């Protein structure tokens, strides 16, 4: 035997309506109806308790009514809403990481320099940093390998990157101590903030220093790597 109270009637109806967004509206409407019926019954001389029982009984089976109502209050809209919130949140996080914080992607990507399998004979330790506008470029060092390759490590950082948008491919020209342009076979790897330039077959016995001209939209930054400052690696 169901409880013949208005409260339990409304709860039973809503228990069948899967979309919670419709509960308030449904409850208010049914509540108003029962209330009005109760007032009328009380005017006819019923006690409030009798009136409530009678009014609720007159409504019918709350489970059946709830099931019927559920058919017309499908949560499609709320699913779409939830889905789009998910998409929005993921997009915002993605944009925050990739645009506002491009160097932050290093958190997720292992450094290239650690991934390359190479036998280093000697290294040059340096830390040179230059800035044009909001672009900071660092020369962090170099490794010379058994194969005769010189790996030169760079880092770039855009301060306030949202003003400049995306990253760029750095342009370098390399000169030796006499101002002769060094043109050897090479390659480069880069992630969003880290670049490695590899010079293959470089004559490290005649080249004493390398001067790198970093072209930031025709305003140059100059870095000098002294090849005589070697630190031997066992």
């Amino acid at each position: 035997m169901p409880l013949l109270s208005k409260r339990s009637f409304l709860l039973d109806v809503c228990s069948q309506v899967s979309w919670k967004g419709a509960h308030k509206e449904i409850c208010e409407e049914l509540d108003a109806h029962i209330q009005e019926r109760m007032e009328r019954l009380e005017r006819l001389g019923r006690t409030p308790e009798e009136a409530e029982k009678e009014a609720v009984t007159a409504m019918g089976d709350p489970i059946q009514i709830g099931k019927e109502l559920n058919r017309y209050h499908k949560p499609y809209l709320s699913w779409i809403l939830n889905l789009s919130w998910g998409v929005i949140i993921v997009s915002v996080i993605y944009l925050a990481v990739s645009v506002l914080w491009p160097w932050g992607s290093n958190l997720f990507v292992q450094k290239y320099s650690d991934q390359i399998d190479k036998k280093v004979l000697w290294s040059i330790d340096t830390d040179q940093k230059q800035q044009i506008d909001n672009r900071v470029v660092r020369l962090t060092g170099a490794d010379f390998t058994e194969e005769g390759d010189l790996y030169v490590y760079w880092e770039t950082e855009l301060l306030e990157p949202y003003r400049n948008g995306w990253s760029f491919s750095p342009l370098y020209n390399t000169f030796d101590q006499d101002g002769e342009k060094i043109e050897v076979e090479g390659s480069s790897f880069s992630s969003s903030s880290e670049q490695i330039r590899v010079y293959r077959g470089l004559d490290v016995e005649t080249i004493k220093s390398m001067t790198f001209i970093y072209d930031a939209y025709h305003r140059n930054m100059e870095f000098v790597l002294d090849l005589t400052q070697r630190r031997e690696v066992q």
Partner: protein
Amino acid sequence: MKNDKILSGSTAMLVLSLLENGDKYGYQMISELEIRSDHTFTLKEGTLYPILHGLVKDGAVESYEKASESGRMRKYYHITRKGLKVLDEKREEWQEFSDAVNKVIGGAAHALA
């Protein structure tokens, strides 16, 4: 499918006809149905609401809220153009059906027609 079901129901037809001469809220419709049908239709009052909500979903009826004199919020229902069209069609169908039944059972008016 669902739509057809709700619109083909005779109770839905009664509800639409109640709204034909003015916007009403649920309780008011129940009271009027009792009076108009001379207490023949003892509809369980709560079952009116699934019908109304179904009609809203089908676009036959629209709802809006309005406060009563006593300040209570009431949800009124208003029949739409589509609802009126559906009601006309249903009336015609009903008329044909009842004419046919009357012919069979020998209703006086139809014997002359």
